């Protein structure tokens, strides 16, 4: 009987932490639904969610966050896969490149923000180069690349960090496919490019998709980069939620939690989408070489 309980015993610390996480989620959802006894609010109501959705600030925040996460994910995945393919074919200095690729993965987001500022801000290096190339004459003439309403700076920061992550994540997988199946395709007469797109890329999809969703969900809900590189309006959703949260009037709390609730829901939808794609489309591929 003890034997059967062993896995559960091993999982006790994990389950405690998981419960804490679930408690946080439940609390966010409940408070977002207006349930805050400490304020005398005892009724569940969708009013806060309704008001939040009607609030133009909120919708622009939500759209901005979605925009940032989708765009940066698309670019990071394409660039990351490209880097991965290039790395596999580069035999010389392989070790050096692999180590260089890890640097962005180990770099905290806060530091990445400073990088973006150093290079792309109006007082940054790019601006100075443009001055010397006579493209601009005054510091103000340099376009506002980073602190702009489309979050370009934030997207650039994410790409710098996430493209190498995708490359690294997919690397060992793609390498084993390349060495076996891609070689077979080339032998059968397919050019290297053709065999990459017909064989290696489709077979690497599980790993690529995995990486894509990790960075999609992360860049949607993360706080640091959008705060450091964002503008006053629109704020990205996590930033907006915290502003609401830290409002001295506690009656703003349910609004903050409703915004958090939306983030939770969208993240869960993204995760569900991933599982759907995983099980429907890629099942065949996975099963075949899971042997």
């Amino acid at each position, binding site marked *: 009987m003890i034997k059967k309980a062993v896995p559960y015993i091993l999982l006790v610390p994990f389950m405690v932490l998981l419960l804490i996480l679930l408690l946080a989620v439940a609390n966010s959802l409940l408070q977002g639904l207006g349930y805050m006894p400490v304020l005398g609010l005892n009724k569940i109501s969708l009013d806060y969610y309704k008001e939040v959705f009607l609030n133009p600030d909120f919708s622009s925040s939500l759209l901005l966050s979605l925009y940032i996460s989708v765009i940066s994910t698309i670019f990071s995945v394409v660039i990351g896969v490209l880097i991965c393919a290039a790395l596999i074919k580069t035999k010389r200095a392989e070790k050096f490149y692999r180590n260089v690729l890890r640097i962005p993965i180990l770099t905290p987001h806060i530091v990445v923000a400073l990088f973006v500022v150093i290079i792309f801000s109006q007082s940054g290096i790019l601006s100075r180069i443009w001055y010397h190339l006579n493209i601009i004459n005054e510091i103000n003439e340099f376009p506002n690349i980073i602190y702009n309403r489309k979050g370009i700076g934030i997207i650039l920061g994410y790409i710098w960090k996430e493209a190498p992550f995708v490359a690294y994540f997919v690397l060992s997988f793609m390498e084993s496919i390349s060495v076996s199946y891609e070689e077979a395709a080339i032998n*059968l*007469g397919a050019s290297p490019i053709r065999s990459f797109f017909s064989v290696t890329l489709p077979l690497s999809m599980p790993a690529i998709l995995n990486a894509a969703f990790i960075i999609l969900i992360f860049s949607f809900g993360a706080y640091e980069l959008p705060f450091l590189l964002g503008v006053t309006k629109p704020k990205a959703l996590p930033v907006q939620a915290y502003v609401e949260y830290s409002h001295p009037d506690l009656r703003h709390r349910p609004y903050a939690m409703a915004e958090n609730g939306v983030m939770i829901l969208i993240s869960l939808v993204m995760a569900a989408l991933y599982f759907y794609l995983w099980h429907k489309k890629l099942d065949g*591929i996975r099963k075949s070489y899971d042997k």
Partner: protein
Amino acid sequence: MKMKLKVENMRVVLSKKDIISDINLSVGEGEFVSVLGASGCGKSTLLKAIAGMLPLEGGSIFAGGKRIDNIPAYKRNIILLFQDIRLFPHMTVAENIAFALKIKKIPVERREAGVKALLQQIKMEGLGNRNINQLSGGQQQRVALARALAAEPEILMLDEPFSSLDENLRFDMRLLLLDIHKKYHMTTIMVTHNKDEALSMSDKIALMDGGRIIQSGTPEDIYENPVSCKAAKYFGDASFFEGTVSNGKFQSTEFSVDCNLKEGKYMLMVRNDAVEPTAGDDFDFIQRVYTGKEEEYIYQHCVTGSKIRCLSNKKTDPFPAPSKTSFQLNLERLRFYKI
């Protein structure tokens, strides 16, 4: 005979080590050549280099008279069947077979007809829509073969194609391969470490050891006249005795034989079917090895401890197996190697 493939002085280096060197090999059109050797002797490397997957450090390759070692792999039309099969997991059986046809932009109807014909050839009609992971090992092997044939290769190469199959399947697959070889008049190169396969299937055998071809010739040639001890040992059923030759006579503790050789130290090789028991007690009985059709008796010399192997056919010539005996050798079948 027209030379379909000619390899001259090929040398391949991997991780700064010579894997194969001084390889000279010619394969005639329509010939079936086996490259035989122990694991690690470089035979797979040889195939990969011919197919263009590994760069040559030295030497050249000619196919059909034209130099090909500077042509990229995908243009060489030399198809290699890999040891680990490598059927594409994301495609069905039919799509795998049609792969080369699709690359060549062959129109759909002709592709489908081609696939159907090949499926018939490998006796898997109607299984075109199966997923790869639903196939057994033998079926996968056959689909890989069909896939290679669809590409209409000039030269077909196989890397230990039957090593993962069990005995019965192996027999069927060998027949299928030989059938295809005959039907398409296909120049075929097969790598194997199984000597029986090489002996039974090939027009020519190239014996490899340590990255070099140590002997190349017909199966009879190699079996009866191995060029060295190593070559002889490959077929596994020989006994060896060390001795010296002087005054036209080979002398070792176990045997003395008249021969026409220069003075020096030599190794005498005698196959187990060239040995007969006679009166005497030089050798002590050690072991009997039963292989179904035949029996092999292993004896040890009472002084030197050298072992001798003697084959006995139970039905035609049963061996009484005394605890002590002497042996006489078939002088025509003996081979001597200078050491």
